[in-house]
């Protein structure tokens, strides 16, 4: 008997931005993400309602997937920022805060959505054009020949994640490691198109951070009593299996198989495996690696013939190992291994890190694979450190494509805001019928305020943010410093290239030449490519959000 349930009609929300509930949620999301921004940002503890694992983090790549909302409108914004993070690895929080504050400012200004969208589009292109210009005041050329700039770039990423709980020397150590790992992944002397190698991250809990290290080649988890083949003749031939060698019939799938009771399928597979082992030994293979499990009988056979066996490599290490050794993964055990499938290993040794025993595989010649071992005192901080290092690697790679960086610490945002303000005052573009001149000016003001609010989000201790009139950099005065001195106070600006001793004079734009003086290098750098894209993503997402007229939800 079937029962019919009447389909309930879809729910339609008109003008989602006028809905108080949705607005509250957007505000909450902005506050949540805004409070995580920057090196003094606050952390969030993420867990589920039934007492699952607690993750403590402040990075967008962990936070954004966790904060799924019940409201599709909020999720729309969240996913588009998330895509940016997955692609560029950095500036996720910037994009989210900027986008949400654009929406909020547009809402507050009371302008027509169409007009705001038009203006935003224009303003965004104004910004990107300016940032791409050679004479842009907030761009810094990176000198890839010296490590200093790269370390500064990596350090800005590492120090912006307080959940890593790193001391100053630890922070420097990790930044240097990130740069070294990155440099190891850049192949030397390869003619033609260059493809970068890979960094594999291994984490060890319980050791001090300063024990972290970078090694060329791969580190593979292994049993305590791994057998090392004698270093008689380097390089060692290696064979790599992606098929399971456990001796089961897992390849057959789910169907029903009928077998004769006298047929012992296990021993037949095993004899197949041993035949394979026999061939491999005959071919002089010294290292035998399998992604999955290897039958113990085969393992014993191989080790007794002087072959080093590594099982359960895992799918993530397959690609780096293929790159390192040049081996072709063998996907079946039912045919002989092709001679071309063998790879080569240049060095083989056992290394111990804390409680872990690892096999160190080195490349035969030069290869762009390296392993970074990250150590930290507890798991929470170690996980954040892993995410952070990944982010740093991403940023460094982006820098290779476009060797420039933006001033960090909120200075780029304030500078851009100053630039946009000035430009919009001097020349008002004709944006057609959708947008009048006054509307454009007010939209530009909202845009600038959004940019400045992102810069302000860097301050979490109640300090006041100020902008100097000469260079339009961001300065902060801590709330708990009872300074009576006039002016912006001691210290230096957000990016660290100016100090508070100078006197501010003009409000001219483009700002004074001092900034292009090579001797003044900012201490805090942001990835140029990531930030540029984040800016575009934020504006586009905000425009889309402003453009949404109805939200129709199927509640069945």
């Amino acid at each position, binding site marked *: 008997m079937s029962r019919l349930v009447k389909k309930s009609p879809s729910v339609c929300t008109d003008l989602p931005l006028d809905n108080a509930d949705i607005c509250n949620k957007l505000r909450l999301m902005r506050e949540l993400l805004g409070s995580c921004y920057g090196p003094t940002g606050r952390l969030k503890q993420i867990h589920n309602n039934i007492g699952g694992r*607690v993750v403590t983090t402040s990075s967008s790549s962990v936070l954004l997937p966790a904060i799924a909302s*019940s409201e599709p409108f909020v999720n729309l914004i969240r996913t588009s920022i998330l895509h940016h993070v997955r692609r560029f690895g950095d500036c996720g929080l910037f994009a989210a805060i900027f986008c949400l504050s654009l929406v909020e400012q547009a809402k507050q200004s009371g302008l027509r959505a169409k007009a705001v969208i038009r203006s935003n589009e224009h303003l965004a292109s104004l910004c990107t054009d300016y940032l791409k210009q050679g004479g842009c005041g907030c761009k810094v050329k990176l000198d890839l020949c010296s490590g200093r700039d790269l370390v500064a770039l990596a350090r800005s990423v590492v120090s912006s994640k307080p959940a890593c709980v790193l001391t100053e020397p630890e922070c420097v150590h990790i930044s240097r490691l990130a740069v070294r790992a990155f440099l190891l992944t850049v192949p030397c002397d390869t003619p033609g198109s260059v493809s970068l190698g890979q960094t594999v991250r291994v984490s060890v809990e319980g050791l001090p951070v300063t024990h972290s290290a970078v090694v060329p080649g791969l580190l593979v988890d292994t049993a305590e009593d791994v057998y090392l083949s004698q270093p008689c003749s380097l390089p060692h031939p290696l064979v790599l299996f992606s098929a399971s060698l456990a001796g089961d019939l897992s390849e057959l799938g789910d169907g029903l198989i*009928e077998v004769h*009771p006298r047929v012992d399928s296990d021993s037949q597979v095993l004899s197949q495996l041993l035949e394979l082992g026999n061939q491999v030994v005959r071919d002089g293979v010294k290292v035998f690696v399998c992604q999955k499990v290897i039958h113990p009988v085969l393992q014993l056979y191989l080790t007794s013939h002087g072959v080093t066996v590594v099982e359960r490599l895992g799918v993530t290490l397959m690609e780096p190992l293929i790159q390192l050794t040049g081996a072709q993964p063998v996907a079946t055990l039912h045919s002989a291994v092709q001679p071309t499938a063998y790879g080569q290993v240049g060095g083989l040794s056992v290394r111990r890190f804390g409680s872990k025993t690892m096999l160190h595989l080195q490349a035969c010649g030069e290869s762009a694979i390296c392993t970074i071992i990250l150590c930290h005192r507890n798991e929470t901080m170690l996980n954040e450190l892993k995410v952070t290092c990944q982010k740093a690697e991403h940023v460094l790679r982006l820098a290779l494509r476009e060797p420039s960086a933006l001033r960090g610490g909120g200075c780029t945002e304030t500078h851009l805001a100053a630039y946009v303000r000035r430009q919009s005052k001097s020349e008002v573009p004709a944006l057609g019928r959708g947008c009048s001149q006054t509307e454009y000016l007010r939209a530009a003001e909202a845009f600038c305020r959004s940019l400045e609010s992102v810069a302000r989000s860097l301050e979490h*201790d109640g300090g006041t943010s100020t902008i100097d009139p000469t260079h339009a950099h961001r300065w902060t005065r801590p709330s*708990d410093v009872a300074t009576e001195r006039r002016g912006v106070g001691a210290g230096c600006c957000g990016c660290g290239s100016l100090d508070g001793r100078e006197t501010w004079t003009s409000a001219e734009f483009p700002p004074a030449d001092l900034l292009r003086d090579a001797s003044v290098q900012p201490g805090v750098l942001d990835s140029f490519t990531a930030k540029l894209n984040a800016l575009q993503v934020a504006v586009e997402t905000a425009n889309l959000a402003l453009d949404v007229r109805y939200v129709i939800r199927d509640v069945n």
Partner: protein
Amino acid sequence: MLGSAVLNSRQHIGLQRVSALAETVRSSVGPNKKYKFIQDDTSGESVLVCSCFRIIESLEPTCAVGQLVLETVQAHHKVYRSGSGCLLLLAGAWSRAALDCLHRGISVTNIISFMSEGMDICLDVCKESTVLFEDLAVTGRRTAAPRGVEKTFTEAPQGSRHMQRATKSDDMTPNMSVRRKTKLSRHFCETTLHLDEPDVPGVSHAAEMLSHGCEGSMKLVVEAFQLQSKKNQELRNPMFDISKVMTCVLPGLPEGRACVLHGCVVLLSHEQVSVAHQIKERRLKVAFINGDLTHTYRHLGFKKPPGVQPVSERSVPSGSSKEDEWLEKVVEVFLSLEVNLILTTGLACESLIQTCCRHRILLVERVNSPALRLIANSSGALPVTYPTQLSEHCVGTGVQIFIWTDLSSYGRKPAAAVNISTGGGVGLVTAVITSCVDGKLQALEDQFWACAHRLHHALKDRVLLPGAGATEMLCIHHLQKAAERHSQADADRAQETKTGTAAGLHRGHVLQLMADGLIDYITTVTVNAGRFSAVEARTVVSRQLQNFHRDQIMAGKFSQLALEAEGDASADKTPAARIYDNLSVKQEAWRKALDLVFLVLQTDAEVITGTGRKGEDNLMLL
């Protein structure tokens, strides 16, 4: 659906939770521990716990902060096996310090940077006041070992290295050294040489100073160390390899029966005991199996194909015959290889055990796998997964078994504890821990491991810290001095220019609060030692600190006066027993405590995913 609760205001709930959790272990910090019952109201089960780590573990804190605390303590315990109480109590004390700072309007960023500064001061003090292990060993030869080891204060770090450095750099030390001499002459007049092993200089003596109230367990540890180091003796650099130490817990025997043996110890059933009696004290051929000894067992990662169906025209032979077939084959292998002893990490099926017994083969199940590997290595064997894999070169020789004790008179299930030994070549030793009270066994085992790790780390670090609060005292002293300096400097600056910043004042304040946390810690330890009430303990601590400060000021000029004052102060106390702490354990515990405080302090919101229900009032839904 997702909710988010705001934690942070001036009353930081997270920090309060850390502090509350830390309070639960307050009475268990220090060497004098009281047993506690932890009862589960829902199931009615209860557990007897002793150490701080077991308390926190059994409490199973569910809140997010609680989980973080548990994670931190577990990570520490895994590596060091002691110092969890110190970690927790300091995390609690420093959480309160951070809360106080928040109340005073000090920003989170500043709290963190000032506290890190304070930690640097403390770690520097630790580094400065270390005592070389060798020096201790030398003193161990010359002076009497303290009798009743008790937690009271040692006045100052003792040991020659600190003395040398201190006389050069620190102005307070001249009179300290005089004082120490007086003390030694007064209380350690009778010099006895008591060293069991002259070839491992002073380790047993040093170990005694590291026992922290667990003399019994430490005695076992020293025995284990001596057994282990008998063979591969490195006089210059003695090490204690705890990965080659096992424990075997044996209920029903008095605690005095605890001992340390070469090799490993296993418990056997009645029928196995008779076999063991037949083959004991002979050099045996032995096979090692990694895994279960049943006909259905397959190695890890082997997937049984789900859809295999046997089809046949004739009647299908039953499953039991298959088992019999397997049994026959396995026993045949064993007999052909002439093995007398089979060790397996897994289980064995009952029929196989009995068949083996009939053939005078002893089959021992559930052997700890590192132990199995070590014994296999030393006997030249190769552990295999399936018995059918066994061949001549997989079989080891030279293993002996000894009946350690026959338990059959106790009417318990295991009939005997049997010692499987390879003659000590690999350094595998097993501590047998016994107690008549079942509930106490866990605590005794924990104590053993704590002591073992302390000795291990002492030998690894090669240095020790003066214990019984002496290092903490020195840290407090330095923190307070730094705090004073900052406040003073700031006051001066304020007078001169009228533009003084509050930063200096705040820094001084934070450092003072950190020192207060350490004072809280040593006060608690003193109270737990049972000789002082909380108020008295505080008085003693503050008097000690005052002495400390005064000594510093009048050093050199009024050494006589200081001596007299010291004499008065110590008159009402028992002779200061000499207790030492591990450098690495202390440093890591402190650092982890501060990490925990920082993580919680910086957290301002809890994001709870999957909150479908409505009506959770204090949650904001996203």
